[in-house]
Each structure stands twice: as structure tokens, then as C-alpha cells.
């Protein structure tokens, strides 16, 4: 039996789809594992009862043409090194399974950054991409009065998406100053595809007030959010609303990379020209290597997929990657967070939502681990995915250590089936 390389791709967003396709086309036996009900990740998340967006279809056709195995609604909760191989432990509907790999491609995407402000724990205060994800998974915002306050290029597309679905988007507030946003908009001229996207959106929410240099000061409500106060630092205005979308950019999902002891610098996984991390046979692409958007995710994914299957680099792909990386860097500068955002929380504001730890309970002289042990901060189910990213901004605290399981898992899954006696080749993507 000839030995085919087994590649496990974790994450089925653009980066994962590109990686799985490239690896499978190169002769590897590929399993792509994704938590969502269908591949697509964040930007290509298909809406219930509809097809993936047009841009995605070409890629999904390409993936479907390969022999790659796709595991949907399946979460990877552990990767264990065993000799020269990896055992990927995943869970689906409460059942565990293990897949053996010669190479791993981490394409775990990004999550939104949430910052604490008074009222942010009220029901119907959601993320910006969060609102879109909820809508695509079936939530109707029809007729709802929505305020979007946060930061980043997601604000306007999400406003447009919700408006098209019948929501009344009252206001979109971008915290970055106009000058920065204008610079970002100007850079769009050099990217026709994105520009078309942006223009197409504008008519959809013509009556929405878009302000820059404006951010959320607080929200109030009872059983759900009822009003939000926005400020530009000089004056404030309060809007009655049904839903508040508040998120401040994206944070790479690096938990699995850190579990494998890959170098993570400034929150992003370090990779070489072939998208290999500092750990041999572990590749990483898309948002975990630094927030870069869909085009960069696709190129990085292809490069990682080829490399994981043992195919050498392509100069053409490398050149495209370089272009997209420059764009990503300018994006990051445009939407840098203003200092006022870091002092929105009052003493009574909850910082850790899982354990209800309030801002006033935290002594800023503590280390992150000390705060955790003394107050239970970050000890809950999300394991600091929300408060950890916030406190990194607020206090400069580094992310907590990562251990198995990288996200909550049934103990049954962790018990698993011991692979110790299995033949190397009998485990696979079946």
C-alpha cells in the first residue's frame, strides 16, 4: 500500500476551503473539519434555505470536485502529537471522534472583539458580524430598530445586509476618526471588487446616519436593550432601539495553534513562506496569521494546502499574498482603537460575562493569572475568549495558556477511543 499523506484542515471558511482543495488536488487524503452546519466560515456563511454567496460558489465547486472529506457541525477540541503524527479529537452532537493526520492546516478564522461598556450584557446587544451570523442562521430582524456601533470594515456591509432583510438601521457609528476611514475608503479605489461591494451597499440604507469618531457610551434596558447612548467625546445622543450591534474589530482564533506550541506573536500565528508555523507539519492560513480578509485567506489557504500535501511553492501565489498583506496592514492602521474605548466600563460593569466579574473587582496591578485565581475572571465556559481579548486591550494582559480541551467538550469525547494499538493506516477520514 503506498502511503498517502493525510492532511486534516481545521476550519471551513475561505482559507480552509482553499487549503482542502489544494491539498486534495495534490494527492493528499484530506479531511476538513468545521463547526458550522455548512462550509463557508464567516463571510461565506450560507443563509438558511439559500445558496452560498456567488463568490463562494466557484470555490465550493472546486472543493466538491475533490475527494476531500468534509465533517460539518464538528468542533475540534484537541490535537495530540503522537510520534510523527497528530491525532485530532473532534466532537459532533456530543459524540467524539479521532482523525489521524500527517499534517495539520489550521484555518480557524477570527472572532469579534467585544469591549465592556455599561449595558453590554443586556439581551439583544450582539456583535456586528454576530448579528449577521444570527440573521444568516435564521434570526429575523425585520422591522427592528438597530444601532450599529463599533469599528472596522464590517460595519457598513452588515448594516446593508440587515437593512435588506427589513431592519431599520438607525445609525452606524464608527469609532475611528473620519480621516482614517477616508484613507481606508480611498484604498478601496485600488480594489475594484471591494468597491463594487461597497457601492452596492449604499443605496440599501440611504436614510441611515453614518458617523465616524463616534462610539457607544452605554446601553439601557430591562428584559432587552431599549436605548443606547452614542458619543463623540463632546456631545452625546440617545437612541431608542431594539437591537444594538457592538464589536470592535476581529481577533484571530489561535487556541489550537497555541495548544500545539506554535509561536504566536502579537496575537497572530507566525508562519514561513509555505504558511508553515514554527512547528513542523503544522500549517496556518487565513485570519489566525493576522486579520487580512477573504482574499488573503484564500491565497494563504492555497499555499498552505499545497505545502501540507508536499507540493512546492508557487511564485504566482506568493506575489498575490504579498499584495493582500499590504492591504491588510493599512486596514489595521485605519481602524486602530481610540483610548476612550478602554475606559467605558464602570466599577459595576461586568467584564467577564461567564463568571460575572465586575471591572471594580479587578486590581490593575495584578497579573492576568492572579486576577483569574482571585476573581474567577476567564474561568468560565468561553475560557476567556471574550474577556481575554478585552483585557488584552484594557490592561495589556497576555492571553491565558491553552490546554486540552481547547473549548468545552464532553468528558466522553476526551475519554475517546485509545488509538494506541491502532495501525497507522487504518485510522482515517472515514
Amino acid at each position, binding site marked *: 500500500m503506498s502511503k498517502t499523506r493525510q492532511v486534516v484542515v481545521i476550519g471551513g471558511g475561505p482559507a480552509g476551503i482553499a487549503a482542502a482543495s489544494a491539498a486534495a488536488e495534490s494527492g493528499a487524503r484530506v479531511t476538513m473539519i468545521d463547526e458550522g*452546519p455548512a462550509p463557508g466560515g464567516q463571510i461565506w456563511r450560507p443563509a438558511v434555505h439559500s445558496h452560498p454567496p456567488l463568490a463562494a460558489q466557484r470555490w465550493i465547486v472546486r472543493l466538491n470536485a475533490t475527494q476531500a472529506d468534509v465533517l460539518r457541525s464538528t468542533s475540534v477540541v484537541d490535537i495530540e502529537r503522537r510520534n510523527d503524527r497528530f491525532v485530532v479529537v473532534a466532537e459532533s452532537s456530543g459524540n467524539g471522534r479521532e482523525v489521524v493526520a500527517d499534517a495539520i492546516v489550521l484555518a480557524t478564522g477570527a472572532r469579534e472583539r*467585544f469591549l465592556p461598556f455599561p449595558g453590554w*450584557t443586556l439581551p439583544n446587544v450582539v456583535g456586528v458580524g454576530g448579528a449577521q451570523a444570527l440573521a444568516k*442562521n435564521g*434570526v429575523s430582524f425585520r422591522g427592528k430598530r438597530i444601532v450599529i456601533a463599533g469599528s472596522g470594515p464590517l460595519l457598513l456591509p452588515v448594516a446593508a445586509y440587515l437593512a435588506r432583510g427589513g431592519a431599520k438601521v438607525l445609525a452606524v457609528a464608527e469609532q475611528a476618526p473620519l480621516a482614517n476611514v477616508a484613507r481606508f475608503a480611498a484604498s478601496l479605489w485600488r480594489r475594484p471588487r471591494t468597491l463594487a461591494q461597497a457601492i452596492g451597499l449604499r443605496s440599501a440604507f440611504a436614510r441611515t446616519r453614518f458617523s465616524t469618531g463616534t462610539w457607544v457610551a452605554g446601553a439601557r434596558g430591562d428584559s432587552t436593550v431599549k436605548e443606547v447612548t452614542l458619543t463623540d467625546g463632546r456631545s452625546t445622543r440617545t437612541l431608542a432601539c431594539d437591537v444594538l450591534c457592538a464589536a470592535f474589530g476581529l481577533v484571530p482564533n489561535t487556541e489550537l495553534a497555541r495548544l500545539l506550541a506554535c509561536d504566536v506573536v502579537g496575537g497572530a500565528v507566525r508562519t514561513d513562506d509555505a504558511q508553515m508555523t514554527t512547528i513542523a507539519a503544522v500549517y496556518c492560513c487565513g485570519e489566525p496569521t493576522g486579520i487580512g480578509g477573504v482574499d488573503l485567506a484564500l491565497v494563504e489557504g492555497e499555499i498552505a494546502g499545497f505545502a501540507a500535501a508536499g507540493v512546492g511553492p508557487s511564485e504566482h501565489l506568493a506575489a498575490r499574498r504579498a499584495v493582500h498583506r499590504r492591504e491588510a496592514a493599512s486596514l489595521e492602521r485605519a481602524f486602530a482603537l481610540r483610548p476612550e474605548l478602554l475606559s467605558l466600563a464602570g466599577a459595576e460593569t461586568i467584564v467577564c*460575562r*461567564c463568571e*460575572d466579574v465586575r471591572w471594580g473587582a479587578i486590581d490593575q496591578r495584578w497579573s492576568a493569572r492572579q486576577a483569574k485565581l482571585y476573581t474567577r475572571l476567564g474561568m468560565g*465556559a468561553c475560557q476567556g475568549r471574550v474577556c481575554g481579548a478585552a483585557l488584552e486591550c484594557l490592561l495589556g494582559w497576555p492571553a491565558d495558556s491553552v490546554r486540552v480541551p481547547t473549548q468545552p467538550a464532553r468528558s466522553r469525547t476526551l475519554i475517546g477511543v485509545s488509538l494506541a494499538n491502532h495501525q497507522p493506516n487504518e485510522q482515517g477520514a472515514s
Partner: protein
Amino acid sequence: MSDAIEIVVNAKVLRVEPGVTVASALLNNDHHVFRRSTTGEVRAPVCGMGICYECRVTINDVAHQRACMVTVEHGMRVDTGSAA
């Protein structure tokens, strides 16, 4: 909603659209109590993508499942509002 399916939320039957997540089914029925926080606050979905764990509910007697990651199924029992 001719093709609606039924789920049982806190012992009450709810007709919901098939194919949506449990989170969507609840929110579309103005149900905002997903879990109670450790100090008793009501919590509901935030991230919509499995990160924040605010949407945890009990599904078919299995506690602490992310409502935003599970698709509704006919006859599914969902219990909300427990301390999590």
C-alpha cells in the same frame, strides 16, 4: 409557515421554521432568556458563532449546549433560563 416543525421550549410547544438554529427559533419568538448568569442576570446570544457561550441552553436533557450552533429538529426539547 406550512412546513413548520414543532419544538418544546420550557414545556410549551413552539412552531418554528425548519433549518434554523435553536437560537434563531427562540429569538424569533421573542424568547430572550437563554441562560441565567452566576449573579442571576438574563443572558442571550452575542457572537452568533459559537465563541461567547452566552446562548447555552439544555437540549434534550443535555445541559450547556450552544443554541447558536445547533439546528432545530422536530420534537426537540429545549429548556432555558437555568444557571450556567
